C-alpha cells in the first residue's frame, strides 16, 4: 500500500521547493514533494543564469547552510564571471551561466537519491486542517495525503495566465499547466492574495544569429565555484554575446504600443520595475537611443539562445519585428515567443521570520508565492522554510536569520515586514551591513549555524574549521614588525611610499597596493591558503569601515533584542498614531527593530512602544 502519511509535504518543485524538501528530508523528516509536472523540477523558467549582484551572495549563503543550489549550479556550469571587480569586496558578485537542462536533471537526480524524500507528480488542489493538528493535502486526482507541516512553494503557478498580445491563456510558465484551485483553498485558510506579473523574452536559434555583429562575452577562468565543496570547474565553456536594440526597435514599439497588454489594460498584475519589458523600457526611457541585449546559451544540448533584456508581451508578429530590429538578430529564427505571466501570491507580512504563517501553525511559504522574484531569492527562502518545517515537526524552536548575518535574513525580514507592491528582487543596496555580508565570507557567517541545524556534513565542517583556524593563525601575526630592509623593494615595486620605519603586517596590508600574497612572498603568513589570505587582507584593509558597521549592528541590536509580546493590543495603546496602530496590529512585529522598519511606523511611535513595554515590564 502506498504511504499517504508524511512529516512534511512540499507543494512545488522549483528552486524554493527543492531546497525546502531537501532540507526537511536531510534533517530526518519523511517528505513528499508534489509537482504539477515532474519535468518542472528546478526548471529555470526565465534566464539560464544563477547568481549576480546580491543573488550570488545568497547562493553562497545557501551553500554555507548546507543547501543545494550552489552545488547544482557548479555541476551545470557553462561560464562564470565575477561582477563588480574593482568596486570593492562588499559587492563582488559571482554570476554563472548554467545549462538549463543539466540544471533540471542534476537537481532531479539529487532529489531522487535523497533518503526520506519522495517526488510525486500531482497538482495540489486543497489544504485543510486535520483533527490531529496536521494537514490534509488533496490533489487533482483525488488522492489525499496527511502531513504535520506543509510548505507551499508554488512559484508563479497559482491561477496564472500568460499573455502574448491578445492571446491570453490559463497556463503556467512555458506552457506548463497551472494550479487552478489552490488559491481558493488559501483564501479559505485566511490568506490575502495579491496579483503580480513578470515576463520572459523569446528564445532564438543560435545559428540564425549574425554573431559578427555582436561582442563575445567569455567566461572568466579564475572564478571560484559557488560551492565551498566544489573543488574547481571549468568556468568558460560557453560564451554569451552582447548586442543592442536600434532606432527601429523603438519605432516598432511606439507604433504598436496600443497592442501591448501592459498598456492597453489587459494586464492587472503589478510587474517589477527592475525587470521591465522592452516596450516598457522604450516608453519610460524615451531618450535612450539603444538598449543593451545579451544573448545567452540555454543549454549544451540545444541551439536555443535566451535574449536577455528584451522580454515582451506584444503580439507574436510584432515580437518578430522587434527581435529582427536588434543588431545581429535581423534573420533570427524565433523558437519560443516572449510572454508576460500573471499569478497569485500571498501577502508575506502574514508570515513570521521562520516563514510560517502567523495564524496557522505548521503552514510555511517560500519563493515567488511570497511575492519575491528570482531563483536565488526563492531558494534562500526554501532552505529556511524547509529547516523550519522540520523543526516544527520535531518540536524545536524556529531558526531565523538576521539582517546582520545574511542577505537571506535581509530578504525575509523585508518581505515579512514591509508589504511588497511589486515582486521583490534582492539588491545589495537593500542590505545596510553590506561590508560584512560579503560573498567571500558566507561560510564564516553561516556554516556554524548550518552545523547546529544539522545540514552541514563533517567534510564541509572540517573544511570550515581549517579555514577559520588558518585565519586566526594569520591574524595573530599581524602585529609582527617588518623592517624597511625587508619590505623596501616590494613597496618600491608596487608604488607605495617607504617610510624608513618598521611596519607591522597590518600596516602593510592597509596600503592599497599591497596584498596578503605579497606579504606571504616576503616570508610571512606562511602556510596559509588563498582563502585565508583573502580574509586577512580584507579584514585589514577595511577594518575601519567594518568596525563602524559592527558598531551600527551593535546599536541596532538593542532594538532587535527588545521583544514585543505577541498579544499586545496595539489598537488600545494611547499615543500611537492610527496608521501605526493598524500596521502594527496587522504585522505584529517580533521586536522593536522590526517594528521600526514597518512603513508607516515613525520613530516617535517606537518611543511610545518603548515606554509601553517598560510599563508592562514594571507591572
Amino acid at each position, binding site marked *: 500500500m502506498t504511504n499517504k502519511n508524511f512529516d512534511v509535504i512540499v507543494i512545488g518543485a522549483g528552486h524554493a521547493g527543492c531546497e525546502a524538501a531537501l532540507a526537511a528530508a536531510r534533517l530526518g523528516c519523511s517528505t513528499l514533494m508534489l509537482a504539477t509536472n515532474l519535468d518542472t523540477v528546478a526548471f529555470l523558467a526565465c*534566464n539560464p543564469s544563477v547568481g549576480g*549582484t*546580491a543573488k550570488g551572495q545568497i547562493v553562497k549563503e545557501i551553500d554555507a547552510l548546507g543547501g543545494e543550489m550552489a552545488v547544482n549550479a557548479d555541476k551545470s556550469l557553462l561560464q562564470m564571471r565575477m*561582477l*563588480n571587480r*574593482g*568596486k*570593492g*569586496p*562588499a*559587492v563582488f*558578485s559571482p554570476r554563472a551561466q548554467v545549462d538549463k537542462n543539466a540544471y533540471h536533471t542534476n537537481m532531479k537526480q539529487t532529489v531522487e537519491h535523497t533518503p526520506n524524500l519522495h517526488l510525486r507528480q500531482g497538482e495540489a488542489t486543497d489544504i485543510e486542517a486535520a483533527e490531529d493538528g496536521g494537514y490534509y493535502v488533496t490533489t487533482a486526482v483525488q488522492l489525499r495525503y496527511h502531513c504535520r507541516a506543509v510548505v507551499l512553494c508554488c512559484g508563479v503557478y497559482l491561477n496564472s495566465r500568460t499573455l502574448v498580445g491578445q492571446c491570453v491563456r490559463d497556463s503556467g510558465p512555458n506552457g506548463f499547466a497551472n494550479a487552478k484551485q489552490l488559491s481558493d483553498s488559501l483564501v479559505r485558510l485566511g490568506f490575502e492574495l495579491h496579483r503580480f506579473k513578470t515576463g520572459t523574452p523569446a528564445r532564438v536559434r543560435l545559428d540564425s544569429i549574425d554573431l559578427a555583429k555582436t561582442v563575445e562575452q567569455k567566461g572568466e577562468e579564475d572564478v571560484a565555484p559557488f560551492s565551498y565543496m566544489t573543488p574547481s570547474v571549468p568556468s568558460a565553456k560557453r560564451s554569451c554575446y552582447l548586442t543592442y536594440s536600434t532606432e527601429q526597435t523603438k519605432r516598432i514599439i511606439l507604433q504598436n504600443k496600443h497592442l501591448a497588454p501592459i498598456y492597453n489594460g489587459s494586464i492587472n498584475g503589478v510587474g*517589477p*520595475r*527592475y*525587470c*521591465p519589458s522592452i516596450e516598457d*523600457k522604450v516608453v*519610460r*526611457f524615451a531618450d*535612450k537611443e539603444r*538598449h*543593451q541585449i*545579451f544573448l545567452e546559451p540555454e543549454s549544451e544540448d540545444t541551439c536555443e539562445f535566451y535574449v*536577455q*533584456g528584451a*522580454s515582451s508581451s506584444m503580439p507574436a508578429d510584432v515580437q518578430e519585428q522587434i527581435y529582427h530590429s536588434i543588431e545581429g538578430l535581423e534573420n533570427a529564427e524565433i523558437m519560443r515567443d516572449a510572454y508576460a505571466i500573471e499569478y497569485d501570491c500571498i501577502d508575506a507580512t502574514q508570515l513570521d521570520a521562520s516563514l510560517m504563517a502567523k495564524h496557522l501553525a505548521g503552514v510555511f511559504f517560500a519563493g515567488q508565492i511570497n511575492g519575491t522574484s528570482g531563483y536565488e531569492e526563492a531558494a534562500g527562502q526554501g532552505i529556511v522554510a524547509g529547516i523550519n518545517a522540520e523543526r516544527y515537526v520535531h518540536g524545536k524552536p524556529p531558526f531565523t536569520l538576521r539582517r546582520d548575518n545574511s542577505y537571506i535574513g535581509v530578504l525575509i525580514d523585508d518581505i515579512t515586514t*514591509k508589504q511588497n507592491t511589486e515582486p521583490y528582487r534582492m*539588491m*545589495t*543596496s*537593500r542590505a*545596510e551591513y*553590506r*561590508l560584512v555580508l560579503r560573498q567571500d565570507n558566507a561560510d564564516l557567517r553561516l556554516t556554524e549555524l548550518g552545523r547546529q541545524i544539522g545540514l552541514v556534513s563533517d567534510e564541509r565542517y572540517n573544511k570550515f574549521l581549517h579555514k577559520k583556524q588558518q585565519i586566526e593563525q594569520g591574524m595573530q601575526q599581524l602585529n609582527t614588525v617588518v623592517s624597511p630592509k625587508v619590505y623596501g623593494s616590494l613597496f618600491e615595486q608596487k608604488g607605495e611610499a617607504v617610510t624608513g620605519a618598521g611596519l607591522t603586517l597590518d600596516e602593510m596590508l592597509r596600503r*592599497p597596493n599591497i596584498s596578503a600574497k605579497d606579504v606571504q612572498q616576503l616570508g610571512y603568513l606562511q602556510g596559509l591558503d588563498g582563502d585565508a589570505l583573502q580574509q586577512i587582507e580584507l579584514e585589514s584593509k*577595511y577594518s575601519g*569601515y567594518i568596525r563602524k*558597521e559592527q558598531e551600527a549592528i551593535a546599536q541596532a541590536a*538593542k532594538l532587535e533584542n527588545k521583544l514585543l509580546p505577541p498579544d499586545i493590543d496595539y489598537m488600545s495603546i*494611547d*499615543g500611537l*498614531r492610527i496608521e501605526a496602530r493598524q500596521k502594527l496590529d496587522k504585522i505584529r512585529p517580533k521586536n522593536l527593530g522590526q517594528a521600526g522598519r514597518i*512603513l508607516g511606523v*515613525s520613530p*516617535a511611535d517606537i*518611543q*511610545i512602544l*518603548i*515606554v*509601553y513595554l*517598560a*510599563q508592562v515590564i*514594571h*507591572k
Partner: protein
Amino acid sequence: MNNTIVALSTAVGRAAIAVVRMSGEQAIEIAKKFFAPFPTQPNFLRVGKLSTEHFDEQAMCVYFVAPHSYTGENTVEFHCHGGVAVAQAVIETCLKNGAVMAQNGEFSKRAFVNGKQNLSNAEGIIEMIDAETASAAKAGANLLENNLGKRIVQLQDELLDVLSACEVALDYPEEDLELPTVGTAKQRLQQVEEQLSALISTSTLGKVARYGIDVAIVGRPNVGKSSLLNALLGTDRAIVSEIQGTTRDTLRESVNYRDIRFNFVDTAGLRNSDDVIEAEGVRRAKKAADSADVVLHVTDDPNDRSVYPTVRPQVRIYNKSDLYEREPCCVDSLVVSAKYGDVEIIKETLYEMFSAKDIDSSDLLITNERHLDCLQRSKRQLASAIAACDAATLDVVTDQIRLAWQTLGEITGTSAQEDVIDRIYSKFCLGK
C-alpha cells in the same frame, strides 16, 4: 537607549546658575575629560575647573551612580554660572566628548523606562510624548515651509542623486548606463559639504536669534561704562561713582531693541591692580569680552585711537561727548553721552550689525541644537565619503554617502531605503 544625553536643565536665559545635566552609561567618563578635580564620591558637589574650548569656568559638579539618580542611569550635573553663553559652551563640550543632545522629555522618559517613576505617572508621560509628537510634527511642517527646511531637502535630494547613481553602479554592473565617475561624485559631494558648512555656520546667528546678542562693555576705569549700561537699560542698574574701580564684578542685563535681545555685560575697568578682587574683576572682564558677540570699547578721550585686544568684533565708543571740545579723532566710532541718555545710536548700530543682513526671517538660520547636531554629523560622514573616494572602493564610498544622507533625513524625517530604490528606478533604465 544607552547613549549619553545632555541638556540644559534650568530655564534658558538669565539666572544665577545654570545646571547642565548628562545621563547615560558614559556620563561619568565624559565628564572626567573636562572637569577636574572630579568629585571623589557620588552625591557630593565639588568645586573645580570646567575646561571648554573657549574658556575655563569655575563650576561645581556632582555625579550620581546608576540606579541612584533621577533617570536611573549614571548622571552628572554641572552647576555653572548663569547665562546662555556659559551653558552653551558646557553643552558643546559634552557633545564634543561623546554625548548627544537630549530630545525633549528624554530624561523623564529614561527615568520612567528605568523604573524611577511610578506607574501613576505613566499616562502623563505618554501624553507628554504624544504632545511632543504633535509638536514635532508641527515643527517638522514649519521647518519644511521655511527656507532652511527647503535647503536641507535640496541637499538631501542632491545626495540621494549621487547615492542612487552609486548604488546602480554596484547593483547593475552590466547595464550600459551613463554613470558618474568617482571624480564627479566627489565633486558633487564636496559641493554638498560646502553648503552644509555654510548652514552650520549660521548656527551662531541662530543662537543670536534665540538667546540674544552678548555685548561686552569694556574700557579703562572711569570712562563711564556703568553709566553707559544704565543709559542703555534706561534704569539705574549699575552703581556709578567717581571712584575708579567701582565695578568689581561683571554685571549682565538684557534689553530688547526692536526684535533683538541684547545682553549687555558691564565689566570692571581695565588696569593693573594689586587689589586681588579687582584683579579678578579685570580677568573676568577680559573673559566676558572674549566670549561676547561684540565688544563696546569705551573711552572718554577724543584722542584715543587704541584698539581693544580681542578677536571679537568691536565698536569704539567715545563717551562723555558733552565734555568734548572737538570731534574725536576716529570717524568710524560712535560718539555718545551716557550722562544725557544719548545712547540710541549704539542700539541702532548694534541692531544694524546683527539684523539687517544676517537675521532675516526668510533667510536660513539653524536655531535648533538637534538640527545642528545632525548637520555636523552629516558633514563628518560626508567628509569620510569624500576621503573614501580617493582611499577606498565604491562600496565603501556608497555606504558613507548613505550614512550622510540618512543623518540629514533625521531632520526632514525622510530617509527610507525605499527612497533610494525609487530613485534608482525612476532615473535609470534597468533590467534584463
